């Protein structure tokens, strides 16, 4: 029977069309715009052509407009440099907290049992909350006047620590200042970034925990038995056996979370507005401001986006290669 070569193309065709329209075309268009002076305030001729003629956009490129100015401008733009810095620290904090807390949750809930199963089901809920809503919730929960998190931090941390400080201050020559109960979390540059990362961790750590639960379940129980017979205690088993065996999964999870952290946007808009001052203006947030809110400079915003794409591509390639190697 003759093999019909067109059948696979017909089957894959609709998906290819969708991928081209929603991914490839926007990527190519943004690449083109990144070399242009494209001000959204002025109707660009090529944009009109794209929209009305449905011709091949690449044919209508006016190469005389092409330049690297947008890319050069990025590296002398203090606001963009600031957003790189903010994104770096946000990524470091949110990835570290998500992975560590996720791992701790996994170790606690990995055992079988009705309560553990229920906990595992409930773990998916924080991840299911929309990032924008997460930002609003955290903003109100951190409010110094009526926020529940602010109250919890005061009751569970600040007040007990202050009691200890008060006791210590009884000693001669000791005068330690008590912690403030009135920290305005979102008005402090460090705490605002930290709390932004915490809101991200709140959503991601449970999901990562579920990934670790799966990985822990795949480790042969005999390995733990052997360690116990050799006299290792629980802590030693965790450090010497569990962690090394989880290392590939930790690496994959870390890279996946890094990619998502680098793209942080929604919570910045709803939780901090990029503030205080510029302390939580991530790259994506800044690009959005440049392109659609402040400068309306689509060319420059596209160039900044491509710089982010390059950074993300490095992690994506590492991630994919790691996943493929693991398979």
């Amino acid at each position, binding site marked *: 029977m003759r093999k019909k070569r067109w059948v696979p193309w017909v089957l894959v065709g609709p998906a290819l069309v969708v991928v081209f329209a929603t991914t490839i075309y926007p990527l190519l268009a943004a690449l083109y715009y990144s070399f242009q002076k494209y001000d959204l305030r002025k109707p660009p001729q090529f944009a009109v052509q794209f929209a009305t003629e449905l011709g091949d956009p690449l044919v209508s490129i006016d190469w005389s407009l092409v330049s690297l100015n947008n890319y050069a401008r990025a590296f002398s733009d203090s606001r963009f440099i600031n957003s790189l810095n903010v994104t770096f620290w946000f990524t470091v904090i949110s990835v570290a907290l998500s992975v560590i807390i996720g791992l701790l949750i996994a170790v606690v809930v990995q055992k079988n049992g009705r309560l553990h199963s229920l906990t595992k089901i409930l773990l998916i809920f924080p991840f299911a909350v929309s990032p924008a809503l997460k930002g609003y919730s955290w903003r109100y929960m951190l409010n110094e006047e009526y926020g529940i998190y602010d109250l919890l931090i005061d009751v569970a941390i600040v007040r007990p620590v202050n009691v200890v400080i008060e006791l210590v201050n009884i000693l001669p020559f000791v005068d330690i200042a008590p912690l403030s109960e009135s920290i305005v979390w979102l*008005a402090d540059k460090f705490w605002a970034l930290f709390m932004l990362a915490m809101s991200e961790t709140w959503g991601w750590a449970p999901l990562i925990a579920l990934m670790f639960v799966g990985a822990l379940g795949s480790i042969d129980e005999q390995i733990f038995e052997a360690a116990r017979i050799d006299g290792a205690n629980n802590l030693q088993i965790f450090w010497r056996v569990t962690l090394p065996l989880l290392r590939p999964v930790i690496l994959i999870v870390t890279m996946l979370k890094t990619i998502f952290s680098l793209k942080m946007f929604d919570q910045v808009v709803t939780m901090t507005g990029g503030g205080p001052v510029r302390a939580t203006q991530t790259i994506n947030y800044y690009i959005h401001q440049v392109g659609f809110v402040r400068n309306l400079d689509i060319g420059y915003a596209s160039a900044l986006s491509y710089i982010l794409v390059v950074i993300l591509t490095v992690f994506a390639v590492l991630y994919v290669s790691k996943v493929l190697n693991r398979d």
Partner: protein
Amino acid sequence: MVFTRKFLCLLTLVLFLALPFATVSAQDHMDPATFGLDASKPYDGTHLDFLICCAAAPQFASAAFKGAEEFTAMTGISVSFGDVPFGSFQEQLYLEASNPNTEYDIVAYVDAWGTNIYDYLHPLNDFVADAGIDWDDYGPAYQSASTGNSDTIYGLPFRGHPLLLHYRADVLEAVGADVPTTWQELSEVSQAIVDSGMDIAPVSMYYGLNVDQNLFNWYSHLWGAGTDIFDENWEPIFNNEIGVAATEQYASYVRDGYSPAASVAWNEQEANQELIQGRAAMFIGWWWMASRMLDAELPEVSENAAFAPAPGWAGGDIASYGYLWPVGILAQSDDLEASLEYMKWLTHPLTERRIVLDETSGLNTNVAVRLSILADEEVNAAHGGLQGIASEVLANARTIPLIPQYTEIVPILAETINEIAIDANADIQAILDLAAEDVRFVMESAGYYDG
């Protein structure tokens, strides 16, 4: 008995005679001639799309939905409303305006954002002249905001907001204070509230970063003190001696402990919540928020709700930002004539009056823009005189610099105010100087100082 019978007969006669007049009056809003609409329905079957923000908010809902069916009945033109939340409206506005194939015909926009879409808006000068619209029925601030301080009318005033002082009459009475008319008096009243030992914050300000709301009251301080953002040559001057004094006064409310410490991160809504929930005695914000205080759940708030013009500068001017949402027609609209018909109806004094007198739940709003409606006795009676207070404020209201670069400058200013607010020891002069340098760079890059 005879008297009663005669009286009833007379009353019946009067009512009978009055009936035709009442019918005519009630039907005015259904008569195309009232609005200057073409009774022959030349655009029958045309559909218009109106990009509007926040349709759940009464000030927009009332204008968008009320009477839309009546307009359709008179003209055969149907209108649908693309409701976009405020948080994403600016971006949506720019994308739709710059899209040659946009489905939208009519857009409502914030004055400051309008400068970025002027090239996409149909000039309305001829329309205003032909339709006999009384341009002088709009205050100077609203006229400026609709024209971008040029000769071209890009939009007609649609929803407009003066800044009011929202305050608790019982608190001020308890401390024996008069309603503050200047910012300096606001500080004095605040100190009196602190001294009284009352468990309430004197004033609730908003210095946080959120759609640049922390600038609204700063402008009032700046303009009142006698300076501005730019001089006549577009050089930044907000960092001069007067600007520093104005900014010091603006920052003093939180620095002196009159406004809660958390207000350095608050937006306008959060600050207003403090008033509504009984934790603050005063708040300076847009007049559309008045209904929140009047409808507050706490009786001590709702029963003591009072309003006055936003304060001015002691010994200086009273000037505040008159914030406007003009409504315009996109140049790429395929239904320009039908859109103009709709504009006639939407911006007509009768439509505006009916909206502001409507007591339907969810549509009840105090917002009006025409001076004649603001001076209307019945309208004022329905809203406790709010429109009269608004008129007083609008008489001295101004608008912000309406140049395309201002959307780039605004974040610089908003971040500067935020930086000053979050650090009680911040050097205001130094921070304003840095901001002025940044602002100058934006203006220089745009060619404002060439030649």
